[in-house]
């Protein structure tokens, strides 16, 4: 087994174990720590797939921002009281069965399709190494007659694609984040009257 495959299996196992921990741990704080492990393992997988920029964003946004939000909320709600409450729903058995069916039926189909399709696109079925298209971008010449410039780096390539081909979705995403921020402030501020 080569180093790349070993890397994949180690971090895939780590992420799945972390995800299982999120679902099974009784205390929300323990779930949050398991979620952090999953996020970091997935970031490592992103690096191995040639997505260095996404790995950095994953660590900054998920392991940094989202995790801090979760931990603050866990601090604000009374965790100790919940320890005595039921933590799985009444239909847990049916939910587990549904999850198993989803994994076996739809997941089996998806994996089988991916195998066949991967074979047909590369011919050998091997996962191609991250191609040059993921880590370099050709910039058209700014002045007529000059040769096109070539810059390298995954971040540069993603930025070039993001700000040229995906400019409108990018702006819409920024508006979405603004709306989410205002909404979170309003929801957290307002005092709702109690009713029973």
């Amino acid at each position, binding site marked *: 087994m080569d180093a790349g495959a070993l890397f994949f299996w180690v971090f895939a196992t780590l992420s799945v174990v972390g995800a299982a921990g999120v679902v099974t741990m009784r205390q929300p704080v323990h779930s949050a720590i398991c979620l952090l492990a999953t996020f970091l393992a997935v970031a490592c997988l992103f690096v191995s797939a040639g997505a260095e920029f996404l790995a950095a964003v994953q660590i900054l946004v*998920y392991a940094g921002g989202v995790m801090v*939000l979760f931990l603050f909320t866990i601090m604000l709600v009374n965790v100790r009281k919940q320890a005595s*409450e039921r933590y799985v729903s009444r239909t847990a058995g049916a939910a587990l069965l549904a999850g198993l069916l989803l994994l076996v039926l739809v*997941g089996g189909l998806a994996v089988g399709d991916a195998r066949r399709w991967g074979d047909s696109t590369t011919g050998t079925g091997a996962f191609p190494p991250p191609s040059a298209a993921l880590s370099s971008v050709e910039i058209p010449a700014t002045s007529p007659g000059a040769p096109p410039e070539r810059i390298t780096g995954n971040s540069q390539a993603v930025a070039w694609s993001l700000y040229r081909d995906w400019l409108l979705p990018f702006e819409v995403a920024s508006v979405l984040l603004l709306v989410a921020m205002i909404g979170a402030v309003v929801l957290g501020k307002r005092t709702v009257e109690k009713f029973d």
Partner: protein
Amino acid sequence: MTAVTLSHWVGLSFVLFTIGVVGVLVRRNLLTVLMSIELMLNAVNINLVAFSRQLGDLGGHVLAVFVIAVAAGEAAIGLALVIALYRLKSSVNLDEAAEMKG
């Protein structure tokens, strides 16, 4: 052991997604349910990155950036809702918020 291929990545993504679905269905703590939703979004990102590598196309990376942006907004709104629910019910258990069951 065979070499890692696209189908391995898709399989990993599907396992993580299923764990997220089961977490949403099984857990009664609203915080853990939100964490399971984050797991599902992360599984989708793994898929996007794997196909991006298979095709040598940057579109998957850009889409994953958008997914992360939406996930961050969703976490902020969701946790604000958790705090609002906690003010109302003094609990974040989903069984306490079952008025609309009829």
